[in-house]
C-alpha cells in the first residue's frame, strides 16, 4: 500500500519562529490533506491540497504531486500552534480511506 512519511517527527520552536514540515508519499494520489490535532484529540482540517499552493493566515502549504511531496509552512508560530500535524493521502477520494503519516509533534514555547 501507499506509504506516507513525515519529517521531522518532533519539533520545538520558540514563539515567533517559522517552520517547515514535510510529507513524502510513495505513489500518485488523488487527495492530500494536512490536519492539526489539538490537545483534546480533535482533528482540524488545515488544507485540502492535492497540488499547488494554498495559504490561510500564518499557514501555507505546497504540494508538488509530480515529485510526491508536500510542505506545510508555519510562520510566526504561537503557543496555540502546538499539537500534532498529520499529512494524509488517498487514492480515490470518497471511495478509499485516508492513509496517515505518523505525524510531526510541534511544541511552541513562549
Amino acid at each position: 500500500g501507499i506509504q506516507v512519511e513525515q519529517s521531522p517527527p518532533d519539533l520545538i520552536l520558540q514563539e515567533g519562529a517559522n517552520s517547515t514540515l514535510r510529507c513524502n508519499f510513495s505513489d500518485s494520489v488523488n487527495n492530500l490533506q494536512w490536519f492539526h490535532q489539538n490537545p483534546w484529540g480533535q482533528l482540524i482540517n488545515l488544507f485540502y491540497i492535492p497540488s499547488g499552493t494554498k495559504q490561510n493566515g500564518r499557514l501555507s502549504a505546497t504540494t508538488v504531486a509530480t515529485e510526491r511531496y508536500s510542505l506545510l509552512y508555519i510562520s510566526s508560530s504561537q503557543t496555540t500552534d502546538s499539537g500534532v500535524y498529520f499529512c494524509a493521502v488517498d487514492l480515490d477520494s470518497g471511495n478509499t480511506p485516508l492513509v496517515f503519516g505518523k505525524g510531526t509533534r510541534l511544541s511552541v514555547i513562549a
Partner: protein
Amino acid sequence: SAVISQKPSRDICQRGTSLTIQCQVDSQVTMMFWYRQQPGQSLTLIATANQGSEATYESGFVIDKFPISRPNLTFSTLTVSNMSPEDSSIYLCSAGGGRGGYGYTFGSGTRLTVV
C-alpha cells in the same frame, strides 16, 4: 464539506463491557470510515462502512470485536466489544472526499478509557 457529529466525546468503561459510538453526518455519503488512535500514535483504519453491505475490516480488526452498523447514508455506529485496557484509544469516524474539493472531515472523536 460534510459535518459529522460524534458521540460520546469520552467515556470510562469497565473491562468486559461494550461501548457503542455514534456518528451522524449532515449530508448523504456513500462511504464512512472508522479509525483508532492509540496513545501517542497515528490514526489506523479499522474498517470501511458502505451503506447496505457489511463493513470491510482491515488486517488485525475483526467484526466480533468491532461490529459496525450503517443503516442509512447519514449514520453509522461502531461498537467496541468485551473491552480490555488495550482498547483505550481515541476512536474517530470520517466521511466526505469525493469531487467537492473539500476532502474528508472527521468527527470530534471518542476518547475511551478502559479500567
